Each structure stands twice: as C-alpha cells, then as structure tokens.
C-alpha cells in the first residue's frame, strides 16, 4: 500500500464572521474535533478554530531531535511562555509545565494511542472511599453506564484495536471491539510473562492504532517512531486522521488553523456572542456565533476563561464558583527500566501492545485511593533511550560503546500509569505580568503532588520492579520519585463538571452554569483523573456532549 501523501479535503464552506454561525468551536484536538464531527453531522454550521497549524506529511519524518528537543508542533516556550510554582508557597519559576500539541488534531497528533475506558469506580470513588484531607475528590454527576454507549461509539468511529475478555472486573461493554488487537511485540510478550508469573490479569491493550485497514485508512506498519511523532501512515487514529477530516467531510465545517482565540465575548445579558482571535498575521478577527464550544485543553481552557473577564464576569467567564483553573490533575507516571537476556527490539512496532490493570483498585488495607496499570515499552527513540542508560557501568569510552547496542535492543521500561488526586491548590491561573507573543496574559501553573499520590507512586514503583523481575529481568533500575513532574501532558480537571454551580464550572451536559450558550468539553471537564489514560474518556465525553448540545439546539434551548 502506498503512504498517504496528503489528507484529501472536501471543499469547505466559508462562513462570514459577522453573521453568527451555529457553533464556533475553540480547539481541534480530540475534543473539539469530535464535537465538530458530531454537530456538523447533525446539520449545524461550525467554525473550528485551531491556534496551531496543520501538520502535513512533509513534517512527518523520523527526526528525534526535531520531535523532542524543539517545539516543532508543541507549545513553544519562546512564543507561549508559562510560569510555574511548586506549591502555593514556592517561588515562581520560568517553566512550561503544561505541554500540548499546538496543531490540528491537538495532542492526539503525536500521542501513544492508549484508549482505556474508565471503570465505574472512577466516577464514584469519593463516595466509595472517602475524601482524603487536602483533596477536592468528588463524584462525577454521570455514571459509567451513562457514558458506555459513547465509549462504544468512539471505538467504532476511530477503529480501536483490542480484545474483550471475561475478567469480571472489566466494565460492561455493549459491543466487542471493532478491530482485533495489535500483535504483541517484544515488550508486550514480556509483560505477559511477568503477569503470568505473578498471577496478574493482563490483556491486549485497547489502542487507537489500526490493526487492520479501517474506513480506508491503513493498518500500523510498525515503523517504531510513534510516541511524539505524527503517523505518516494514518494508522494512529489521532483527531488529525479521524475526527477533523470527518467533520470536514460533512461540508458544514470550516477549519481555520493558525487562529488563536484570546477572548470569548459576551453581551449585557451574559450570553456568549462569539470569539476574538488572531489570524496567522496577528490580525484580530471577531467571529460571531450562536453558541461557543470551548475545547482548548485543560490549560488553555481555564486560561481563556480567566482572560475573558468583563464587568459582568469580573473573576473570569463561567467562574462564579471560583473553580476555573483549579484541581489540575496530570496523572502519575512511574517508570523502571531493565535489560533482558535476548533481543526485545522495543523500538519496532507500536509503543504499547499489552497491559495489566491488576492494580486498578488496591487492597483497602493499603489506604490508597485510585490505582492504575502498567505497560512495557520503550518510550523514546535511540538518542533519548541511550541518554537514559543507567550509570552502573562506563558512561563513555569503549566500555560505554559496548553497552549501547544491548541497551537499545534488549531493554525496556515498565511504565505505571496512576491516579492523581484533585486539590484546590493545584491549578492554572493567569500570570500577573507575563504575556505571550500575542500580548495575551500567560499561563501560570501551580502544582505539587498530594502526599497521598506520592505514596501511590512509591507503591507502583514496587509493583513495576516486581513485574520486571517476574518477566526475567536480572536488575531493575528505578529513579527517585519527585514531588512534582517537570511538565505534564494530561491536563485534567480545571473546569470540573458537577450538579452544584457553587462547586463546579459545567453541568452534566458540559454547559457552563453561568453562561447558557457556552459549553466546555475537554480534559478540563474531568472530576477525577481515572487511572492514567484520559484520551478515550475525553473522546466519549465529547460525543456525549455533542449529542446533548445538538438536542438542545434543535429544541431551541440554547
């Protein structure tokens, strides 16, 4: 099969800016792209604004320096600087803590493709387990059962590869996966070996990577440059290959890349009237809309709300609760590495093929809320992986060189994915002084791990060691656990969903409590962080939200 050379685009409509479109959607990632797909399929007119550019095949090369060292399509600290504080009392640092792809497709442009569903416990853990001191843990206003049809719809829309099993702890599913699992690669086989030895459950990873041709897109060709790279083949089902092209295919969606929204405008009645954005030449454009759907990610969404303050909304738009920006949850990632006797070749194939979710819920005696799962993988390509070689042998010279090839070919990482607890002191605010290259007040992130999460990480570090050892590793290398990550890509919880307008930003249909025609749909809607893989749930929430929004629009309830 031939590699796709470009994404074919149908002719797009060209909507006038001064006549309200049905919806303006801010952000073309998995949330905005999905809402655009669903609303246009329901016949509504949509302007889809994306602050970044459209990354094309010419950008898709196997360039590790380009992908990791430079913000080639991620938020660029030189243009979009942020400040950071490790806790409310800490000093302010210059640091881009919140990382995301600034491109059509959002972060799914270059993600791993883990498409775990949440389980019922993720929606009601607070009432089942209680709320630890210092945390704002709460129940979702929806249940797993309410979201289940949308999980299934997403699986069939994007083509998720996976395998249903008979583990009673697995959540109910109404349909099998549309595609068989990806073939197990070396790390996947080793994970299964470790799990088998420990008596843990394990399974094919549910992945948004095609195992077979699906909807005219090709299956994974196992090139190995996956995480942090866009997929040339179109096999990794980011919004750039799925939701956005399907929205455009409706003929009702106008995609405007390089369109950076700085404010949501409101009228005297407190309704949103449209958005103000900069085009690629930094000209200010006002796009009028009957309703606004904000899908800019868990850092940019609260920033835009806080930057949209007005006389009527002096603390920021949709922020009468004071919860905008609070409760940021990045998920925990706990890593251990080990070298094995034979060649694993973890640098070929998808990043992840098999997982264990055995520690999804933990023994109550451990007094740990949340949990997670593990996969075995090589997270980064040759240079980064070599830089990560443990220092228990020569680090340069002939001895080091001898270690390079076995390290690259025979070693893997056990990566544990965990819960983050929400906390009112962690979150996104506006830096009082710093502005970005467009003159827009910049993001400040305040984040420090909750003491509880540090204990959870420690527990997972032990489990990772056990799993690698059971898989046959002679020596396991673990790093020191830090009380805050250097940066985060899972940006969750900063405009949480809830029934009570005093403690949440949006209602169960993603409508802002304070602004009737403003909907907020992305990782910011999350009440809990789940167990480390949020993208599938963002996607399902977006499908569900769009379903309700379309219904409201048809009934004249917007």
């Amino acid at each position: 099969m031939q590699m796709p050379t470009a994404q074919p685009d149908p002719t797009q409509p060209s909507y006038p800016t001064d006549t309200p479109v049905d919806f303006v959607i801010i952000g073309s990632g998995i949330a905005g792209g999905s809402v655009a797909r669903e609303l246009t399929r329901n016949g509504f007119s949509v302007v889809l604004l994306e602050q970044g550019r459209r990354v094309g095949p010419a950008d898709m090369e196997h360039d590790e320096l380009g992908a990791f060292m430079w913000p080639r399509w991620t938020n660029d600290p030189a243009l979009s600087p942020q400040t950071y504080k490790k806790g409310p009392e800490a000093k302010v640092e210059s640091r881009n803590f919140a990382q995301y792809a600034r491109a059509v497709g959002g972060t799914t442009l270059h993600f791993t493709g883990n498409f775990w569903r949440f389980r019922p416990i993720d929606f009601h853990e607070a009432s089942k387990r209680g709320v630890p001191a210092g945390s704002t843990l709460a129940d979702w206003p929806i249940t797993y059962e309410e979201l289940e049809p949308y999980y299934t719809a997403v699986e069939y829309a994007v083509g998720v590869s996976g395998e249903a099993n008979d583990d009673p702890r697995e959540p109910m599913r109404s349909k099998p996966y549309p595609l068989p699992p990806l073939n197990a690669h070396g790390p996947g086989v080793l994970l299964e070996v470790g799990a088998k030895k420990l008596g843990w459950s394990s399974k094919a990873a549910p992945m948004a990577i095609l195992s077979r041709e699906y909807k005219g897109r090709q299956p994974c060709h196992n090139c190995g440059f996956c995480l942090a790279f866009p997929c040339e083949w179109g096999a990794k089902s980011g919004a750039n290959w799925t939701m956005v092209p399907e929205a455009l295919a409706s003929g009702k969606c106008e995609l405007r890349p390089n369109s950076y929204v700085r404010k949501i405008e409101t009228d005297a009645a407190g309704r949103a009237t449209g958005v103000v954005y900069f085009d690629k030449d930094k000209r200010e454009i006002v796009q009028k809309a009957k309703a606004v759907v904000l899908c800019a990610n868990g850092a940019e969404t609260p920033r835009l709300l806080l930057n949209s303050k007005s006389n009527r909304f002096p603390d920021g738009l949709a922020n009468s609760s004071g919860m905008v920006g609070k409760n940021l949850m990045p998920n925990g990632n706990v890593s251990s590495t080990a070298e094995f006797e034979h060649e694993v070749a973890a640098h070929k194939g998808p990043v992840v093929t098999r997982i264990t979710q055995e520690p999804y819920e933990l023994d109550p005696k451990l007094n740990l809320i949340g949990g997670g799962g593990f996969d075995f993988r090589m997270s980064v390509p040759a240079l980064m992986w070599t830089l990560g070689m443990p220092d228990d042998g020569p680090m340069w010279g002939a001895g080091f060189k001898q270690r390079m090839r076995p390290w690259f070919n025979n070693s893997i990482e056990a990566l544990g994915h965990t819960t983050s607890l929400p906390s009112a002191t962690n979150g996104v605010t506006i830096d009082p002084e710093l502005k970005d290259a467009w003159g827009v007040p910049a993001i400040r992130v305040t984040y420090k791990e909750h003491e509880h999460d540090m204990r959870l990480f420690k527990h997972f570090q032990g489990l990772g060691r056990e799993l690698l050892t059971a898989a046959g590793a002679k020596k396991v290398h673990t790093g020191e656990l830090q009380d805050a990550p250097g940066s985060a890509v899972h940006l969750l919880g900063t405009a949480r969903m809830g029934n009570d307008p005093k403690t949440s930003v949006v209602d169960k249909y993603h409508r802002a409590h304070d602004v009737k025609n403003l909907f907020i749909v992305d990782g910011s809607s999350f009440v809990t962080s789940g167990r480390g893989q949020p993208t599938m749930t963002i996607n399902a929430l977006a499908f569900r939200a769009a379903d309700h929004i379309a219904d409201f629009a048809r009934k004249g309830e917007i």
Partner: protein
Amino acid sequence: MQDSEQVGTTVSRREFVAGVAALSAVWLVAGTACAREGGLPSDTAKLVHLTPDQATQVDAITARILPSDDGTPGAKEAGVTSFIDQMLNGFAKEQAPLFTEGLASLSAAVTKAHGASATFASLTTAQQDAMLTSIEKTPFFGAIRFATLAGFLSLPKYGGNKDYVGWKFIGQELAMEHKAPFGWYDRPENQQALLGRVL
C-alpha cells in the same frame, strides 16, 4: 514525549533526561529561533563555528567518548565534530561559551600536566582518557558527551550520523515499516515456550 506516556513530562522522562536536564533546557530554548540547515561538509576549511585547533581538539575528545578502536564506527566516522560545529553556530548557539571555555580549560590542564607543547590531540589515548576522567563531572563534559551522542544518533541532516553509521551501529534501521517478529521474544516459538500460547 509528547504521553506518556507523557512526552517530555513524566517521571520516566525526567529520569531519562535527569543527567542532561540543564542541557535539555538550553536546547529547548536555543532550538526555536535558530537556523537548522544541515549538510555542511566535515572539511575543517568549511568550519562555521570552531577554529581549526578547536575542531582538532573536539575531534580527539569525541573520539574518546565514542572510540573506533574496536573496528566499529565511532564519533569520527559519524562526523560528530561537524555536527557540533554546526550546532554551536545554530540550534545550540547558547552553548558556545560553555564549549569555548571548556576547551580552553582542558588545553590549559593538558599543558600543565604534559608540557607547553602538548595538545589534547597529541596525547596518547591513555593520557587522553585520564584527562577526560578528571573532568567527567563538569558541565562541559556533560555537554560534549550529550553532543557526541546526538551527533552519532540524530538524522544526518544535522551534520553527524554520516551515512547512518550511528544508527547502523546501534541497530536502528532506516525503514518506514517493520515486519514481525521484531526480536527474540515475539517469535511464535518463543511465545509458545514462555506463555504456552501465541498472542
């Protein structure tokens, strides 16, 4: 790194980058605005940043970090000096003072230990290794080690990894697709032996 998972973000990534954290930050900042055109020849007459003396010194240092004594390609064969020369004039401009000072201070240490006419390149490999061991905890050594690996393993368009010798050495293939089985563990007969089934 970019996911987990989290690209650029995780405990795991922090571990990977721990040794070069400061450096990575420099690279991130340095990389954005600078020219990245590659393809400069390794001919020292075409140097864009290093002086010929510095280039000779860099060549000798990097050849000890990734030597070719064992008959396999090392820093020299990969053109690492050319990579470093270009990076100091390009995406890693901000590291230029670190390299200038580090090379000067190493030269001074060499003449102090081996006499006024000695240069790093003129030393025996054993003497060179001893000199490098004495500076291996310095930021300069960290930077040149990182640059050596980067010049060995990044795309040739950045000036190093000539003819992909670094990739070939480590086992990274220039391929748009791979066919399973990829390694030993995913071979069906080994899966069968390890798991009693083939996944």
